């Protein structure tokens, strides 16, 4: 009788331990999902600034329609990638799409800024300066939010790969989450061009 009870007690404790692991995985997963919301907010800010930027530039760079349209197209692509990723943060496919879209947007913006060097009137424009300043500051915020998200994803991934957590993770659908990294495209910042 005693033996049976002790066994039962051990089983109960084991069950509680496993449930505890499950709960901690859920907590870590929630953490990275919430952390993605931060990125979402800043990316949205970035995306919202761009139409304004293009409008301002259009007035001065009428001949560069190709580039301007490319910017808008890249921006729209990035918006839909962002919305898809917001529905499934950490999903490898969604993250990859978002990274590519943001990278492309960054590249095209870089081209735009490089071009704008040749238009001193545009550079002198107050609105343009303000928008570029806000874009830069938003870049910093995105970087910071990305760092927090990646930290959270790392904690989650490590937790789910540890033993014995790995035994719970598989059957209960805790998939590995993907980090969010932007490859710095070569021309993110307006290069300093001097005509000496």
């Amino acid at each position, binding site marked *: 009788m005693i033996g049976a*009870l002790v066994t039962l007690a051990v089983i*109960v404790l084991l069950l509680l331990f496993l449930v505890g692991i499950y709960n901690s995985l859920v907590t870590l997963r*929630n953490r990275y999902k919430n952390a993605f919301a*931060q990125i979402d907010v800043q990316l949205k800010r970035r995306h919202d600034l761009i139409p304004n930027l293009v409008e301002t530039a259009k007035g001065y760079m009428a001949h560069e329609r190709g580039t301007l349209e490319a910017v808008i197209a890249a921006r729209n692509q990035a918006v839909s990638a962002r919305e898809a990723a917001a529905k499934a943060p950490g999903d490898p496919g969604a993250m990859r799409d978002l990274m590519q879209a943001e990278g492309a947007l960054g590249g095209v913006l870089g081209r735009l800024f490089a071009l704008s060097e040749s238009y001193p009137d545009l550079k002198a424009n107050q609105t343009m300066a303000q928008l570029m300043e806000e874009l830069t500051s938003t870049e910093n915020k995105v970087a910071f939010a990305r*760092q927090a*998200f990646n*930290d959270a994803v790392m904690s989650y991934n490590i937790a789910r790969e540890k033993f014995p957590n790995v035994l719970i993770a598989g059957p209960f659908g805790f998939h590995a989450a993907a980090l969010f990294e932007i490859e710095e495209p070569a021309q993110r910042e307006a290069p300093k061009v001097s005509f000496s």
Partner: protein
Amino acid sequence: MNFFEHQDRARRNTRRLVALFGLAVAAIVVAVYAAVVAFLMTTEAGHYVAEGGLAAPEVLVPVLAGTLFVIAAGSGYKTLQLSGGGPVVARLLGGRPLDPNSGDPDERRVLNVVEEMAIAAGTPVPDVYLLAGEHGINAFAAGRTPADAVVGVTGGTARQLSRDELQGVVAHEFSHILNGDMRLNLRLIGVIHGILVISLIGYFIMRAGGRSRPSGRKKGGGAAIALLGLALYVIGWIGVFFGRLIKAGVSRQREFLADAAAVQFTRNPLGIAGALKKIGGHGAGSRIGHRRAEEASHLFFSNALKKSFLGLTATHPPLDERIRRIDPSFDSTFPVVEYPPGERRAAAPEGALGPEARPAGRGAIPLPGIPFPGAAALAGAASAPARVAESVGTLDPAHVAWATTLLAELPAGLREAAHEPTAARALTFALLLDADPEVRSRQLEALGRSSEPAVATETRRLLLRLESLRPEARIPLLDLALPALRRLSPEQYRSYRTMVRALADADGRVSLLEYTLHRMLLRHLDPHFGAPRRKGVQFYSLKGLGQEVSCLLSLLARAGVQPGTADGGEEVAAAAVAAGARELAQAGLEPRLVEREACRLRDLDGALERLALAAPRLKERLLRAAVAVVVHDREVTREEGELLRAVADGLDCPVPPFLRAAEG
């Protein structure tokens, strides 16, 4: 009843609860034993009972041990789960944290109301969670201390209440936060869960017994097992029923008090009465559809479940009784609330600021049986120490108005900065910089050397905007930045913390005010990032804390000395400490001015840590002593006011902002 009496009462209630729970467990153990004995009689193990009598040790001990173990394991598990504090409860109910920078108008409104209330109360701004899928009108506050409290609202609340009504609901929740009700609530959840586990086990045994087909070997063996399971299930169910009765008894009374507090905070009974009336008239009422709602039903603003059993297990008093206590003219007809969820409410003219919306001539509403502290107590009590002690944990519409004005007048961009994690860090650095230019340049140097040079630039930029800020805005801005800072990742927080401590270090020449401010900031953030929890109350007498008290009072006394006073101000400081000592005479303490070297800023940390573990009544006296020291020289600068508030915060006593005499 002031804040300290509330805290005492909450702790007494906890003890009472534990006693009741113990009785319930004893009853359950007896019942389980009876059921097991009955079961055993039907098997060959029955000879144990036949031989050993009803208290056969071979049966008694395992059953006793087993039942107690199960209940302890169940309660322990749940309590452990809830040790994560408010956010755990909010997520349990399906809540989503709101981004402090949210642009959605409904969310923005809720966030603004919560911010104003927190600043007015002098507590950190709590995280706000939204139960988006819930159409009923309800709200909750959960957490262990004001520092890790969260406030939750349903989608219905965010969309369908006017600003005044929202403010009334938020004020009600804040009174729970300030009165120490939340910890008791969480404990109730944990404790009742243990009893629930018994019925779960019974359920499983019932299923197991039902499935096995007895081949007639034992006389009805399978049926006997099933019956045992049924018995356990019923016992567990009865236990849970009694648990709910306990919950209901404790929480119903508190709801009336919280309603009264809400009226006191806003001086606008129409707000909270309006919210209650809307609940009455709303199709979904205040019901929460989530399956976990029952566990947390006592945390909500209004009844989250459908009809209770004979009204006995209702966690909240009946709606019309609540409304009548606030608005005696209520005639039991609820307004028809028909807005389909998601549609904006019709543009009813609402007061832009809550306090201005109160009808003329309605002043303070005396509620039967509940004395109205605030105006009477504060005016009657002549001395400043008594006034401050009475104001702890309460607030006034004047404070709310002050908070609203402060937020509206903030220099451009500061509020957005406070809401966003990157900028919030720089903002807090800027706020923690010392006034002395030499110390300040040293601090900025330290920042520049840190791992992120961009932060130093941002700090300098924000510093310019802070030039015109009044001193009383520092603590509110720090409180405002907390929700954004809670969103740092643990690694980011670690580097942030190092930088904050570096600022406070600056060769130890930082002023007392900056030191207490940085301490306040970290104290509110550390628990969120996994710092070990502080224990409840460890000191019931101040006798063992003499050194700490002397240290605190000495630092306060010296901080108030004007530079250039004769003999370095030692005599003045000693007199100030003596004034503080008078407040502590009853506690049998005789604090004296201690040597400068005996008590440095670093020692203040340790001193306050220990003093924070004193019983509520002792803290009241401590606070009065601190106030006496500061007002001794009859000149309380605004910085000294902030110092008092920061020190009080270190003792877990939220003090509302000090309003200038003209502001009332």
